[in-house]
């Protein structure tokens, strides 16, 4: 109470002092003093405000290219200002970085192919603050298998199915037909492999780390790929209820792929662990046709983590395991001998993922 009264009294006194002398007069004289101080010492330090510093650039020799004449350019004075830490922190605290990535953009990455408009040059990296619906898109494992099937069918039917173009079948009809065919085929295709692989996985539970390591090393680096054509939205973008958990330890980002990037490198960069690259693939499965190849200019969602790397939450583990499982299916379909490593990886992060996927496939 006494302290508060004292502070108030000090404020009143300061206000009185300024009223007596006049703000403009004091400021004008302060500027003159700063100039004088810079001339004299080259440095003026104002407590809790900042430091003005005078430096000189190096003198250099100037040569006129037309005449060949040379002359020495004198050193140029440069006044710099470094704000005090307190002021810098206050400025930082008042204004958060701009939200440059919308929820629609995240939804587009997970549900539809990337469009040329998205590939147009924009701000390179942006931070998503809190998008509940977007989180639900990335973190809801329930709709993953159906989403995957719908996406495959949509891609094949809407843009790349030559048979559809030839026969003139409407895209709507194919939307309905292809998921059923695909899911039936995949069910038969996966069931046999899952059973054998599960028994294999249970034996090798302790060697998950090694398996994931081998996954990382076998991952090829990126090369140039042609971006896909624009396509219609095949699925409503996001759950509007916003049920997703917003408590991120690592917030989601949008990253524009540059030359030399790969999913493996991005995971190493953002999570500090390259084994999490299937998690990035999972969030961008609609954009990435081939996980071995990501195209420069692609805008990829780097999903957030609720826990840190030492203590991942159950949901994180579940999502990562699903990423591994999606890759397992992809490589299995491609006939790659490393497919089984991904299954082991999935099992290592969440051993219930196989049961869930089997249930989802019916």
């Amino acid at each position, binding site marked *: 109470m006494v302290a508060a009264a004292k502070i108030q009294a000090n404020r009143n006194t300061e206000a009185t002092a300024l009223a007596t002398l006049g703000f403009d007069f*004091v400021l004008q004289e302060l*500027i003159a003093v700063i100039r004088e101080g810079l001339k004299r010492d080259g440095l003026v330090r104002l407590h809790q405000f*900042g430091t003005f510093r005078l430096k000189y650039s190096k003198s250099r020799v100037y040569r006129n290219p037309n005449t060949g004449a040379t002359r020495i350019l004198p050193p140029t004075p440069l006044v710099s*200002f470094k704000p005090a830490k307190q002021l*810098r922190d206050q400025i930082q605290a008042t*204004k958060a970085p701009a939200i440059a990535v919308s929820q629609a953009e995240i939804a587009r990455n997970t549900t539809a192919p990337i469009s040329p408009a998205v590939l147009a040059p924009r701000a390179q990296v*942006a931070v998503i603050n809190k998008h509940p619906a977007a989180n639900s898109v990335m973190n809801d494992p329930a709709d993953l298998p159906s989403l995957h099937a719908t996406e495959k069918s949509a891609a094949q039917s809407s843009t790349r199915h030559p048979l559809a173009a030839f026969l003139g079948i409407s895209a709507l009809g194919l939307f309905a037909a292809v998921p059923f065919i695909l899911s039936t085929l995949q069910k038969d295709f996966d069931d046999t492999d899952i059973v054998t692989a599960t028994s294999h996985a249970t034996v090798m539970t302790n060697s998950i780390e090694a398996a994931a390591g081998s996954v990382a090393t076998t991952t090829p680096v990126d090369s140039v790929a042609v971006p896909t054509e624009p396509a219609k939205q095949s699925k409503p973008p996001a759950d509007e209820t916003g049920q997703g958990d917003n408590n991120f330890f690592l917030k989601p980002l949008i990253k524009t792929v540059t030359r030399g990037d790969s999913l493996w490198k991005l995971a190493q*960069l953002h999570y500090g662990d390259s084994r999490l690259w299937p998690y990035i693939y999972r969030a961008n499965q609609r954009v990435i046709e081939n996980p071995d190849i990501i195209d420069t200019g692609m805008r990829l969602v780097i999903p957030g983590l609720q826990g840190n790397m030492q203590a991942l939450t159950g949901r994180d583990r579940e999502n990562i395991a699903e990423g591994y499982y999606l890759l397992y299916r992809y490589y299995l379909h491609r006939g790659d001998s490393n497919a089984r490593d991904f299954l082991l990886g999935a099992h290592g992060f969440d051993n219930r993922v196989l049961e869930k996927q089997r249930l989802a496939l019916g």
Partner: protein
Amino acid sequence: MNTSDVIKLLSARLGANQKLTRQALKQVLSILRQRLIAGDAVTLSGLGKLQVKESKGRYGYIPGKGRCYIPARQQLRFNQHKTIKDDFAADKDD
């Protein structure tokens, strides 16, 4: 030159005692700080202009840790007044 030196010089110029000058200076700096925090540009006539600008997020390199992401942030920039170049250059020559 630190704050005490500034106060001494300033009090001589203002014709006020150091206590009063200190209080006035504190108040002036407080007002400037508030304007900057609010996002306004502050022009110090004959010295330069202080303004808050947003820097873009970028990737940086920390020798001990490696490549890291530096997020977008608000930064205070100072642009010096054009008279400074002539005034201080002349002084240097002298």
